[in-house]
């Protein structure tokens, strides 16, 4: 199966050993999209690594930026201003929704329902428009930077986010009307690809896949970052750990994200969007144009990069897919000595064999879809 099978969501090849229609073995082969991002990162300045993180999980670029920025900020000891933190949370939650929308559209399409993908992309388009307004790019925004965010959320974008948060819950209901009680959908997903919480943890699985087993896992809650401790939200849990429960968990997560965005918009008070650290943050553009000191400062930061104290950190955040971790070793220069990226899909895909064993061939499509893998971050 693969690497060009439409249901593998990218370039994944799976060797299936079958007994008739029953799967005995499912071995994934990776690497078709390997770009050596970890090696590249060692040869770039800290600032230049941000566009690379966009290209890991191309459906959740903002959270990738966030994870990396938080790790470097930990090394630098930077404190984020309130507004930057709130903007980051809003963007991370918008990313979560748009990632789940693409997941739902393609996953449901794999199983044979044609219409939801049209609806999903209709709503995703609105989020893409918001990203374009805020960051200037739709897919790879590189918006969250070390020390802050690149550009403020203006009132226009703010109104658009608020309008989206108002209308989106109605659309979730539309998807649910199509699927939640649909007998065909239930037949294809209930009891398929089951896993217990214990097995899932042993296999390193995180994110919605682990939550669907009923295990209380959410780094936003247990190890909060970027001010998540100030938001009201609960664990979203499934029960059986099958494909259907993963669907339920993600639907509920979208509702939760909308709630978090609404809370975030209330917290959005005027203020700085960059940390107060001249060694890391370039001066504002108007100053660069008029002041020679600022121009030199700007030039130095852009050409040489900023120096980061020696040491090592591991920073993990909760992405739409699970735990994304950046382990950064710094030798005190302006380039990272080593960047080890723990990507959630990489660990989650390891569970494929356990999930697919003993199931029918047609279920593999449902199982791969339900794990919501992105090959960009598996192959790195």
């Amino acid at each position, binding site marked *: 199966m693969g690497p060009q099978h439409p249901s593998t969501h990218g370039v994944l090849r799976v060797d299936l050993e079958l007994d008739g229609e029953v799967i005995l073995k499912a071995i994934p082969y990776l690497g078709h999209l*390997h770009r050596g991002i970890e090696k590249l990162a060692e040869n770039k300045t800290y600032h230049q690594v941000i566009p690379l993180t966009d290209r890991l999980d191309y459906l959740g670029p903002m959270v990738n930026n966030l994870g990396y920025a938080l790790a470097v900020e930990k090394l630098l000891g930077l404190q984020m201003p309130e507004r930057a933190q709130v903007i980051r949370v809003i963007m991370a939650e918008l990313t979560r929704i748009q990632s789940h929308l693409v997941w739902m559209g393609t996953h449901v399409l794999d199983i044979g329902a044609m219409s939801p993908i049209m609806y999903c992309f209709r709503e995703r388009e609105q989020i893409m428009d918001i990203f374009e307004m805020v960051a200037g790019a739709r897919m790879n925004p590189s918006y969250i930077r070390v020390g802050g965010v690149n550009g403020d959320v203006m009132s226009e974008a703010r109104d658009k986010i608020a309008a989206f948060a108002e209308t989106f819950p109605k659309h979730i209901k539309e998807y649910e009307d199509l699927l939640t009680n649909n007998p065909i959908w239930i037949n294809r997903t209930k009891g398929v690809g089951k896993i217990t919480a214990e097995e899932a943890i042993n296999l*390193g699985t995180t994110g919605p896949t682990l939550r669907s087993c009923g295990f209380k896992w959410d780094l936003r809650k247990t190890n909060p970052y970027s001010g998540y401790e100030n938001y009201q939200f609960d664990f979203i849990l499934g029960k059986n750990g099958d494909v259907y429960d993963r669907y339920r968990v993600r639907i509920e997560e979208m509702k939760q994200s909308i709630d978090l965005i609404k809370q975030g918009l209330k917290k959005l008070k005027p203020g700085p969007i960059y940390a107060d650290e001249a060694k890391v943050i370039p001066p504002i553009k108007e100053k660069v144009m008029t002041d020679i000191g600022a121009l030199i400062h700007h030039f130095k930061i852009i050409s040489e990069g900023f120096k980061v104290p020696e040491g090592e950190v591991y920073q993990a955040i909760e992405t739409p897919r699970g735990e994304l971790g950046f382990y950064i070793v710094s030798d005190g220069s302006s380039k990272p000595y080593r960047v080890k990226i723990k990507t959630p899909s990489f660990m989650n895909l*390891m569970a494929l064999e356990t999930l697919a064993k003993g199931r029918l061939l047609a279920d593999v499509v449902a199982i791969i879809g339900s794990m919501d893998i992105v090959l960009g971050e598996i192959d790195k």
Partner: protein
Amino acid sequence: MTKEHPAIKKLEQAFPGVVKKIIIAFGETGIIVDKDDVKRVCRLLKEDKELSFDLLSDFGGVDYQGKKDKRFELVYQLYSTLTHQRLRVKTEVGENESVPTITSIWRAADWPERECHEMFGIEFEGHPDMMRLLTIEEFDGFPLRKDYPLLGKAEIIAGHEGGVQWRKRE
């Protein structure tokens, strides 16, 4: 996290002298152990009821060529789903040395160990399947070593029928 990280106390009690060094920085705790102790340390950390470091968050290597006596360092990022704490276990490995696998403790270590093997050339004793993971079988060299050139040593000029042919970069 302070000096009294509960895990370190427990480890000292169970295996005196096993923790070679404790590193506390940036609010994170790391310990360095001998490579032959990795397995029993990990097993204790995972199976102890109060610590319960049951999730292997991440595993990878770092190449310290010319900077440290032993060239490589392996880093195990552990996470406890019970106490929500993290612990970093590190071990130093020289060139051409092998390390016991921990796949019997966490199945999650399977692919990361394979990745580490192909990127750094470190052998893992007892690993069920040490095939290359992200690069092709014919690949020459270990890309994440510091002496491996950024552009690679060679590029593929033909694939498929004639087998893989490489052109060396100058």
